[in-house]
């Protein structure tokens, strides 16, 4: 994987196939791995967090409640938010992967990190949960959020688009200008652009607004 570019404050989407090197790059960007060559410079990054595709990698608590506390979160509101109220005493390993992912994201997303790297945050989530997570990400105002995903349809409000193809990380640009060159764009966006109705962003509402234009 070869990469060159700058990640400015805002929400970045990096799209690409599963196993194209996204997780490795995510780990390097979060400062948890040295690249084989070149440098990664972190300017003004006082705090950072990396969320892996498999939420079980992050488990340190023996119970769900303990797991929340390990992220410095009050279990009550977190469990209510992810529909796990009353299950604070169960082992995190007793949750399904979807439930564990909800719990993990509910603990991570409220954090005010200067750099938040999310590796496949939509993996294991159903469409309703994906939309809810997108709404949460869309309102992040602080710092740099980099989302590595092969998601095909549901996206948060995004500032910058990147793609991994042919072993290279390619910067496509600021949204919406980047949409025309986006190889991994959902077909509905490609169709809208072809008909001269480029959406203002890649959220569901923006796509619907563009579709309604005459």
């Amino acid at each position, binding site marked *: 994987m070869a990469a060159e570019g700058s990640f400015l404050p805002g929400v970045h989407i990096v799209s690409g196939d599963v196993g194209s090197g996204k997780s490795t790059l995510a780990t390097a960007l979060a400062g*948890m791995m040295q690249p084989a060559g070149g440098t990664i410079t972190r300017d003004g990054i006082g705090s950072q967090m*990396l969320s*892996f595709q498999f939420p079980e990698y*992050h488990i*340190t608590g023996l119970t769900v409640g303990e797991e929340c506390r390990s992220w410095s979160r009050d279990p009550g509101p977190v469990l209510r938010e992810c529909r796990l109220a009353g299950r604070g005493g169960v082992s995190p390993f007793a949750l399904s992967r979807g439930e564990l992912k909800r719990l993990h994201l509910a603990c991570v997303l409220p954090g005010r990190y200067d750099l938040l790297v999310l590796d496949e945050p939509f993996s294991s989530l159903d469409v309703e949960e994906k939309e809810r997570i997108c709404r949460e990400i869309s309102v992040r105002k602080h710092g740099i959020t980099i989302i590595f995903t092969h998601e095909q349809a549901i996206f948060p409000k995004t500032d910058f688009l990147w793609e991994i193809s042919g072993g290279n990380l390619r910067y496509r640009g600021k949204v919406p200008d980047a949409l025309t060159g986006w190889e991994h764009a959902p077909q509905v966006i490609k169709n809208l652009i072809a008909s001269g109705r480029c959406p203002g962003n890649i959220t569901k509402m923006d796509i619907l607004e563009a579709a309604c234009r005459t």
Partner: protein
Amino acid sequence: MQDVRLRIASAAVLSAAAFSGLWGAAGAFTWWVVMCSPGVTRGTLRRIAAPFALVSVFGAVIWFTGGPGFSYVARMGVILLVGSWVYDEYRPGEFLDLSVWLLGDGIGFDLGLVAEMGMQCLEILVADFSRIRVALALKGKTRGLRALVPAGFILIHGTLARAGDTASALAVRGYRGGGTLKPGFLTGRFDIPGFISALFVGILAFAPVSEFFILYR
């Protein structure tokens, strides 16, 4: 050594020779230096560092209690080098080929399949462990039991979950026991000489050489 049959046979003979005594270990180490050391990487040395440290601890205990601690460490160290060589030379599917060649397409195939699944599992565990370490470090758990215990739980849980998925895959693919396979082997130019020299080391380690020289005088 490309031919896994000769490689495993050489490793077995050399390990037995090394275990038998210091002379056998010296012979096996010499063989390793000549045949394998050009291919040694930092990865190889890192891989045997932890087991060698463990062996050294046992050796120290043996020494302090009046036993042959140095001999133990030397012999086990050579066995670790031979084992690491076998691991480095591993090519995908070899254990399956070897097992079927040795034991047939019934029990041989089953054992080879277990070995294959084991190698796959090992690769996933290594990749998972490196990610788990990163995830735990992000939570401030970098060393000692605070990192090892949760990592252990996560790896065990993941392995058990994958075992269920593997069982499903085997069942749906119609596994009932055994399978057809025509094993294939590549024998390199230096494989047979390498094996013969390993045999020679083994013979020297176990044959009563001193008595042979007495007879010859």
